[in-house]
């Protein structure tokens, strides 16, 4: 059995690497994603620091001196409450109320520390007294939040189309019919396809991860092994989705339509680009049945919050169970012709 699986595995890999156009595409797409992100999240703005100010009617010299500091972007805000979370997430380095001379700074933020020194220096010759308010919280940028979803999304395209399209093409061409005339069983054939696609996708995703980390850099405080487990399980689950779609269809056009029909909703309902908090309840319910939601959420919890496997057990359970169910359905309804 393993001999047959191995033979099919090798054949599929060979085909993948020799099919230049498909190979180019599967490398190019991730590269484009990395370039896009590197471009979108590279600060060209020389204003390194951001300070939020509550404006006052009477201007003091010290105030003016502080506000004339170069390379600091001053943003006027109207209330304190709404600005505090931004300090906590390091989106703003310091909040200064020019009326009461209260200032808020995040003690874990390096930028906050530097801006605080500048503020104190500006008021050194003044008799006005500054009042320090300390806040806490780790920096989470949109980039950090969106990266897990982007990796998961790239995996989804590769899994659904890489499996679905290939099997449908094999069926249409008659490659499957020829295999049927050999002792190869559907389970052996499908196992080989899953394994081939799985390792290729994992390698590509590891490369994307390294590439993005090098060019843009993002937050990852959890365990790499846990993250790898989440992506592997997610990958298997998405591949199994592709298997179910490809189980019977013999027209590439129909397969293409169906694959798009499930991948695009997944793109937008799995909370990759924006949080679904506050979205319509039925949208949130739909999101829960999509494998991509669980991959993205689990990866976020590991990367952003440093969650362990126990904390994401529910996501892993959903992914594992769906994989088993989808694989069973796929193997059951599979047709060689």
């Amino acid at each position, binding site marked *: 059995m393993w001999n*047959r699986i191995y033979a099919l595995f090798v054949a599929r890999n060979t085909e993948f690497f020799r099919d230049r156009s498909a190979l180019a595409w599967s490398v190019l797409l991730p590269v484009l994603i990395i370039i896009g992100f590197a471009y979108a999240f590279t600060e060209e703005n020389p204003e390194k620091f951001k300070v939020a100010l509550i404006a006052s009617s009477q201007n003091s010299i010290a105030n003016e001196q502080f506000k004339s500091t170069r390379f600091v972007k001053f943003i006027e805000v109207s209330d304190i409450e709404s600005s505090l979370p931004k300090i906590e997430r390091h989106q703003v380095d310091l909040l200064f109320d020019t009326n009461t001379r209260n200032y808020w700074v995040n003690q874990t933020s390096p930028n906050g520390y530097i801006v605080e020194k500048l503020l104190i220096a500006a008021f050194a010759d003044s008799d006005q007294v500054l009042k320090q308010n300390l806040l806490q919280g780790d920096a989470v940028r949109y980039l950090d939040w969106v990266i897990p979803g982007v990796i998961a999304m790239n995996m989804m395209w590769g899994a659904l189309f890489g499996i679905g399209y290939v099997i449908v093409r094999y069926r249409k061409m008659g490659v499957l019919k020829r295999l049927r*005339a050999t*002792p190869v069983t559907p389970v052996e054939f499908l196992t080989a396809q899953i394994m081939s696609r799985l390792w290729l996708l994992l390698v590509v995703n590891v490369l994307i991860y390294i590439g993005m980390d090098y060019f843009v850099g993002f937050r990852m405080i959890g365990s790499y092994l846990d993250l790898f487990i989440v992506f592997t399980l997610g990958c298997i689950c998405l591949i199994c989705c592709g298997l179910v779609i490809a189980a019977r269809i013999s027209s590439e056009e129909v397969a293409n339509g169906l694959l798009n029909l499930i991948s695009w909703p997944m793109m937008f309902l799995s909370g990759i680009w924006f949080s679904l908090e506050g979205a319509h309840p039925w949208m949130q319910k739909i999101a829960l049945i999509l494998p991509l939601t669980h991959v993205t959420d689990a990866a976020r919890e590991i990367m952003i919050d440093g969650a362990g496997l126990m904390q994401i057990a529910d996501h892993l359970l959903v992914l594992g169970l769906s994989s088993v169910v989808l694989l069973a359905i796929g193997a059951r309804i599979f047709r060689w012709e």
Partner: protein
Amino acid sequence: MSVILQVSSLVKRFGDLTAVNEVSLEIRAGTCFGLLGPNGAGKTTTIELMEGIKTPDQGNILYQGEPLGAQFRNEAGIMFQNTALQEFVTVREMLVQFSRFYPRTADIDQLVEEYSLGEFLHQDTRQLSGGQKQRLLLALSLINLPKILFLDEPTTGLDPQSRRNLWERVQQVKAKGTTILLTTHYMEEAYELCDEIAIMDHGRIIAHDAPDVLLARHFDDVVVQIDENDIPPRVGGPEFDATYRNGNAHIVTEDVNRTIEKLLSLGVPLDRLRIRARDLEDLFLELTGKELRA
């Protein structure tokens, strides 16, 4: 001789069409059995039922007395009518891949040698010519040293030279004692290769025996063939007892001497005259009222 494959009362329907209608056959071990018939007669459906590729609506198929199972898969070699090969893979890689599917396999180098695959061994399967592809497919179907080999129209679409070449390969396989079941619409191919033939039309078997036995049973006459243009216009047409096919007049006779005397008396030139025995093409025409390759 023992029966290696036995089918009884096979029926296969596609919607309203009964493609295979109550077909029963016994294939004896070591023989070459030919399923002959025009396009659409149900040959391919029948052979695919016997290969286990399609499931019959009714009837039984027994391989060495057992229903088709794992043993059959391991011991059967199959060459389909149209097979697309996996792309981006070389001929040699294809052979290696298929050899991994089976517990008992032929030596790949020997197969390459016997089926002359050496000259394109490292080419992508997409670059093969029709004849090369058929040779590869034949080699692939023999990779598991099959006891029974199924060939579905193995030479359709090949040029005469490639066809003859493939026939020689099939003869080699047969000489080793492999049972062969083949379908064809070339009566010459059936005559050349088969020990036994069954003629199919409209999903039924209408005649079944050794080719010579069939011919002897149905015919005790020969055909005198003359070029159509050699017959003077005044003796042409219905009053002249002949059928016209492919530019020739075919005169069926039990007494060649009398026919030739008659032709001489009519002043027909005999330079291009040919006398031939009745062939499977005639038999088919006789049995169905239509030509094999119509």
